């Protein structure tokens, strides 16, 4: 049964991989990830793990922003919290909940480490990313002058 399920998943993965590469041909440069998904990849790639994807939408259905951003001390900055596994198993950051009591525990590596390898730390779908040319930045700090 377990083996069967695994095979089914493999078959499915293959089809999805195909579909993903096809979409990549049809629409270069556009990723469709959910608004406010955060990719965290300060260390993961270097340690041979997939980047972490944190879904805001999923968590805000269950918690108000205050729980993470005031009580648990998450700074408003993608990649800015220097999260690592040692902190998580000590009950900090994701580990305040992913401890087998409030939510599933850390042995489910692939649930968090689910990003396409090589994806840099970023905030998906942000308004800044959607600007065609970052005009405002250029006004503040001309690129050719140092």
């Amino acid at each position, binding site marked *: 049964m377990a083996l*069967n399920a*695994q095979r*089914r998943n493999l078959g499915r993965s*293959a089809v999805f991989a195909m579909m993903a590469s096809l979409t990549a041909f049809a629409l270069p440069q*556009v990723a469709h990830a959910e608004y406010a998904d955060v990719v965290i990849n300060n260390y993961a790639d270097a340690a041979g793990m997939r980047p972490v994807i944190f879904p805001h939408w999923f968590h805000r259905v269950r*918690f108000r922003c205050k*729980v993470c951003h005031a*009580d648990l001390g998450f700074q408003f900055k993608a990649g800015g919290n220097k999260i690592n596994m040692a902190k998580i198993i000590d009950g900090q950051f994701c580990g305040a909940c992913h401890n087998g009591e409030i939510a599933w525990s850390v042995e489910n590596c*692939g649930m968090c480490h689910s990003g396409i390898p090589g994806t840099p730390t970023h905030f998906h779908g942000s308004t800044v990313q959607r600007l065609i040319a970052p005009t405002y930045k250029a006004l503040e700090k001309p690129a050719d002058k140092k």
Partner: protein
Amino acid sequence: MSYKAHARWLTALVTMLIAVTAWSSEVLQPAQPAAVEWSSSTDQGSVFAAISESEVMHLADVSSANTFNQNLKKHEANLPPPEDGIHDPNNEATFALQPPKVAFKGLPESTFGNQVDWVKSIDQKALAPRWDRVNPDEEPFVLDMDIVRPVKASMPDVVFPHRQHTEWLACSNCHPAIFIPQKGANQISMSAILLGEKCGVCHGKVSFPIETKTCKKCHSKPKPDDWKPPLSSATVNNPWK
């Protein structure tokens, strides 16, 4: 290995084949007739093959440069994780993640961001996210105080509502790091917001994005009837007037 497993592998393979054929016929076909015409009208296939190759590249260049509204970015929203372009479909656990559409069923809708109206979701009690990590009964401290910020432009004035914010956030999330808690004490401009400062710390990242459809959420207080736009000094001092 069971018969079922074989059948599934086969289906996967056939689907892949169909996909590849579909793709190649779509992308490669315009190139093929040109190549065939060239080599069939002459006998020196190898020479013309080279020419037709550059011909094909040239055609491709022109067509892609002239696509209609080439700077318009459209995204399909709420795709399931394996198809969303950042989750790895080769990771088994990706398939265990919840697709957003499943979770958003029945919530009040919007046409931007997550396509969910998060404010209405709480007001209508369609959602009750926890205010405390462990205690589901703890209630937020909601402050009902609007702050009006007059705007020096034709846009309606900005109303900042504390109520909707304190449903989600603690005072310390904004005061004093992002805003000094005093009316008018903060310099806020649209360029700062678009760069991710002030209101843009959250809006354009997690709370609703900054786009044409959302301007009026913030710019919600119409200008008085007798409002006239301030004239720029270049207009006032224009020597050729």
